[in-house]
């Protein structure tokens, strides 16, 4: 069978519209998430600008709430999730020796659902009454009272959810069916393992979120009262359903990041990953635990004490497998022969900042003290340390790690390092002071605050502007790397292992048409 005609594909716009090629779709995902990160980033600057000083300066309180809501939804569903799906699309087939994803046409569709969904979400700003201002958690009864923008958001969440479900079915089908001969499950790269587990989390939880927002929709328009006590419903029911999705969701955001760290650290330590088997089991354990801890987001709703104790103990347990992962990474570095190219810097930085988010997470798991941390800036600091410190730093690490394979050119190391240090420093400048703000009593999601919180808010705002503008370096670096630069070798990094390094740089349009043999 000739593969020649596969090399012919449409050029220009139709190439991207009709593509079923995993590399093209990966590229589309990555550019999409970049655009969404810019949009969400601008919103964060609106938030931080308003919080620069006490008093209302720039926006109205209602618009401020719309900004915090959209910033959250866009960054979670528009930036971090698609970024990892993009990385999976590019890398999974090359890492397991498959010619493409298992379901290429569905792959095209799962991407092309995203731009209309994102457009709808942003368009809600222009609906009568504006976008929802109830926070990304969309708690009723507040969301039942919202204007038409809320319906835009519900529809958008449905479309984003369908895209995620299709994407995860594809990833599961690919990993389970298309591994090269000889690559048993326990020989798979950790990135593939973490994505396999993440995909199952998505499959199990996205339909639950869809159920929750559908119930909201019928409460809003069709006279049901799932969440209205006056009609026999319960507003807290929504929170249970939402967080049954929402807690696994945070691991959906971070497990692929763990996979990235587990690829990069051994490469630059020139030493195999320490405790591969325990890494796999730790990831699976985290995934399992993520289903039985959801109510730790709701300690203050007035649960029975036994319930609170159960969720406290279960949540504390997550520290054990997470700790195992961190110890394994440190043990991988131990007595290695380390170099610190840009991807390694991002990976080490990511492990460091993620762990900070992890230990504040342990603080938050303790029910009695959580009553004081809950809904304050301490939470805001905590989850930005996990999501930016863990996931986003890992996304950058992964892009730097594989960019030479994608473009065939080396990127500028000095610029990559500058980007890393500026991002790391300004990220900490933004979010570290928010721990103190929360402890001292500043609630989250407020557009204006009491005078004693001024100092740290100023620091945080300065940091936020630095973080966002530092990303211009990244944009310049990537464009420069696509256009040219030193030719990248097939084996881009000296210590890198895996099938993706066996293919030429840049990776040809089709790889592994004949499956490689793994021993």
């Amino acid at each position, binding site marked *: 069978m000739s593969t020649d005609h596969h090399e012919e594909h449409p050029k220009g716009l139709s190439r991207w519209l009709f593509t079923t090629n995993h590399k093209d779709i990966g590229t589309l995902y990555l550019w999409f998430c970049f655009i969404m990160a810019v949009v969400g980033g601008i919103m964060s600057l609106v938030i931080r600008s308003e919080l620069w*000083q*006490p*008093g*209302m*300066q*720039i*926006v*109205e*309180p209602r618009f401020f*709430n*719309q900004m915090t809501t959209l910033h959250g939804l866009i960054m979670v569903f528009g930036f971090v999730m698609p970024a990892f799906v993009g990385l999976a699309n590019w890398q999974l087939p090359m890492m397991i020796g498959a010619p493409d994803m298992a379901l290429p046409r569905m792959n095209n569709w799962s991407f092309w659902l995203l731009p209309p969904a994102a457009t709808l979400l942003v368009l809600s700003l222009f609906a*009568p*009454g*504006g976008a929802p201002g109830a926070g990304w958690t969309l*708690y009723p009864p*507040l969301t039942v*009272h919202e*204007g*038409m923008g809320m319906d835009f958001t519900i529809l958008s969440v449905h479309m984003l959810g369908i895209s995620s479900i299709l994407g995860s079915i594809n990833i599961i089908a690919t990993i389970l069916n298309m591994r090269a001969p000889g690559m048993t499950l326990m020989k798979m790269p950790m990135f593939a393992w973490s994505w396999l587990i993440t995909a199952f989390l998505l499959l199990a939880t996205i339909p639950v979120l869809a159920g929750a927002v559908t119930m909201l929709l019928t409460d809003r328009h069709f006279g049901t009262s799932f969440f209205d006590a*006056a009609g026999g419903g319960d*507003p*807290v029911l929504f929170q249970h359903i939402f967080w049954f999705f929402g807690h696994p969701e945070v691991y959906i955001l971070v497990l692929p990041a763990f996979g990235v760290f587990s690829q990069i650290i051994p490469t630059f*330590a020139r*030493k195999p*990953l*320490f*405790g*591969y088997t*325990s890494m796999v089991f730790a990831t699976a354990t985290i995934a399992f635990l993520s289903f039985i801890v959801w109510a730790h987001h709701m300690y203050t709703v007035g649960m029975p004490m036994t319930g609170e104790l159960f969720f*406290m103990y279960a949540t504390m347990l997550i*520290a*054990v497998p997470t*700790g*195992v992962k961190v*110890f394994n990474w*440190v043990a991988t570095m131990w*007595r*290695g*022969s*380390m*170099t610190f190219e840009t991807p390694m810097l991002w990976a080490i930085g990511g492990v460091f900042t993620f*762990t900070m988010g992890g*230990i504040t997470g*342990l*603080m938050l798991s303790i*029910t*009695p*003290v959580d*009553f004081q941390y809950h*809904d304050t800036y301490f939470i805001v600091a905590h989850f930005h340390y996990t999501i930016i410190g863990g996931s986003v730093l890992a996304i950058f690490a992964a892009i730097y790690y594989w960019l030479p394979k994608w473009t065939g050119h080396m990127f500028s190391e000095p610029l990559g390092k500058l980007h890393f240090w500026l991002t790391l420093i300004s990220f900490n400048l933004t979010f570290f002071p928010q721990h*103190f703000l929360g*402890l001292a*009593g500043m609630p989250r999601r407020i*557009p*204006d605050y*009491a*005078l*004693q919180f*001024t100092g740290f808010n*100023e620091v945080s705002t300065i940091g936020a502007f630095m973080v966002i503008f530092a990303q211009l370096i990244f944009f310049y670096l990537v464009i420069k790397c696509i256009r040219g630069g030193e030719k990248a070798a097939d084996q881009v990094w000296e210590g890198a292992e895996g099938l993706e390094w066996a293919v030429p740089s840049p990776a040809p349009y089709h790889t592994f048409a004949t499956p490689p043999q793994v021993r």
Partner: protein
Amino acid sequence: MSINPLKSLRGVVVRVSAGMSLLLVSGLVRADYALNFQRPVTEIGRDLYGLHMMIVWIITVIFVGVFSVMFYSVFKHRKSRGHKAATFHESTTMEVVWTIIPFVILLAMAIPSTATLIKMDDVSGSEMTVKITGYQWKWKYDYLDHDVSFMSTLSTPQEQINNEAEKGENYLLEVDNEVVLPVGKKIRFLLTAADVIHAWWVPQLAVKKDAIPGFINEMWTKIDEPGTYRGQCAELCGKDHGFMPIVVKAVSEEDFNTWVNEQKATQIAAVAAAGKTWSKDELMRKGEKVYAQCSACHGATGQGVPGVFPGLAGSKIATGPVADHLQIVMGGKPNTAMQAYTAQLNDVDIAAVVTYERNAFGNDTGDVVQPADVKALR
């Protein structure tokens, strides 16, 4: 007012520059960079502070320990120093050790946490009960044992929020009616809400719980020392979530009893006022004040927020039959942000605000609603 979120550009420039100069003059002096919990004034608060600090120290030691090892490795085991990579990649012993040790540490944290939680959960033996109801965007307090009840709203002037006046010391943390509580008594709070979910939080008392419409939560406190303790709503509840503070004034039992008697006298006077016939001017003046509560949604000039909150200027309700108008103010509108004000406002307030709404914003209906009309509908 349009829905355009950006205020006029000139306004922004003026405000930002005013903010900047304010910062230079006083901001740096004011900023106190508090690092930790506010000083607790209850036993539970001190327990929580102790628990919090214990956990902070444990995790700090672990964090520093783990990353000391990592950074030692980063500096010593690098290729540029000629370090050759070892080849080990697993050790069951190590895996077991670093699974068991964290588990034991967690156990050590779980035991005191459980004890504290059990203590916090025990509302038995309380000596008085205050029911707290969250409204968009104010609090209502009912002293169930003393027959006293009142609303409490933000008292910071709008000029300070809009940067047109110097901000006071307790900016955004001040209210018209403070919650007066006796020290040394176990006080039970019952929490609920009328519209959306709120959360009642006073950091120094170490109490926080959600106030949920249709449900009643409970918690308790026992304040050790007299003083004024300030807090805020801690659950996003809409537009003015940032503007519904809580102020607790803890006083001796003697002062508390005096205060209760004063409150009762005020309430009796209010009942008397409801009995007389009011002139239109009186009602309009009073109504304008009461309308401040309505203006958060319906706008200071009755313009509303298009698409979310209906305007009152020329509206069907405010210019149609008086009975419909009264019904919606008193009974609210289901599934919207429009609350039932029967419980929140007295007869005079409702009569005044309805009269005001029917005659302000160009609605000139000429209708006058008397407190007695309202009373008849209750």
